[in-house]
């Protein structure tokens, strides 16, 4: 919908934005149960008081601001941390604008910058959904070694991720 137009009713707001909000939430939390709850929380918070709509663009901006608040509350409850650590304003906006192709490119760049065994354990665990034990078998190491490897690989990948900003 053109951002200058207005929505006819709350259902139009929902249908036009539910996918966008859900995907943004998924990108932020990486799991379905939390992404579903947080998406519901955003729409309940936004649609309850929403009686007046100026334009599609303004409703979306309001959805995004609400999503950010909801996420901040989620991270406080889940990790005991304030917003800044896990909420990155750039990604929030980029994801809401629906750049579906961007994250995989960035992910590839991060993985490519890692030593082979680090890359392999992260692929097995987080892309192929292997358990630690399964990943250990695939790598031919003990489970304890796989845990250590996962930790070091994530640590290194997190450092690389700081450098590979979108």
């Amino acid at each position, binding site marked *: 919908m053109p951002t200058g137009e207005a929505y006819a009713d709350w259902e139009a707001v*929902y249908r036009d934005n539910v996918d966008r909000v859900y995907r943004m939430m998924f*990108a932020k939390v990486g799991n379905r149960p*939390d*992404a579903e709850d947080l998406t519901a929380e955003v*729409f309940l918070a936004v649609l309850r008081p929403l009686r007046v*709509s100026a334009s599609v663009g303004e409703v979306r901006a309001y959805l995004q601001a609400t999503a950010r608040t909801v996420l901040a509350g989620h991270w406080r409850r889940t990790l005991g941390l304030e917003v800044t650590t896990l909420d990155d304003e750039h990604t929030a906006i980029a994801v809401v604008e629906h750049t579906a192709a961007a994250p995989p490119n960035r992910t590839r760049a991060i993985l490519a910058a890692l030593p082979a065994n680090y890359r392999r354990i992260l692929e097995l665990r987080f892309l192929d959904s292997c358990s630690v034990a399964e990943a250990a078998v695939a790598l031919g190491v003990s489970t304890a070694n796989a*845990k250590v490897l996962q930790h070091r690989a994530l640590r290194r990948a997190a450092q690389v991720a700081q450098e590979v900003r979108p």
Partner: protein
Amino acid sequence: MTGRGLRRHLDDLVAGRRPRPFRATPDEADELRTAIELRAARPGADEPREGFVDGLHARLAAELGATGPAVVPPSTGAGSGPLRPVGRRRLLVQGAGLAAASAAAGVAVGHALTAPGDAADGSGTITPAAGVWQTVAATAELPEGAVQAFDLGTVAGFVHRVDGAVRAVSGSCTHQGCRLRLDTARNLDCPCHTTVFALSGALITHQLPVAPPPLPAFETREVDGAVQVYAPQA
């Protein structure tokens, strides 16, 4: 060594379970963020379930009472908090020039629409009996899309540039006069009753029994690299 809390959290994440809370250090949060990014990069991972989209739609419909008599759903569904009963609600469309369009589109109107420029309720353009042009920003400070707050003592507001033109709106809520603040979504939030206005002055949301009028605008002009508004002298 990764803490036990993070390891368990990551195991949940990979298994598709709701990850259990743990007290994270900043380093652990960075590592978790990277793991989440990898999870989210799997093709199709962020596709919402069909059942979820329809289920939430039904829940909202019940909540908002838009598909029939107001129904209070049992608050047992997955998700956040108890639902409270809400009467039939409609989304009103409001804003400059939108009144006619929304009427034509058959949008139900619960109370009178008040477009900016309608002086009947005090909104519209601020026209002081004895005003002077006062500089609130330099032209160079206000590129396309920029917003600046100003305070002239007698009045305060926000000036912004859209489509090349400079516009200024009042920075006081039209409900009880609380000072509005610019939020990260570039809307103006009232700290008193969570009312939100757009920079155009149009009301976006409110939780008041009666919708407050839109924000009045100032007359603006640009002279010799200065952005000015017409306002009473301090």
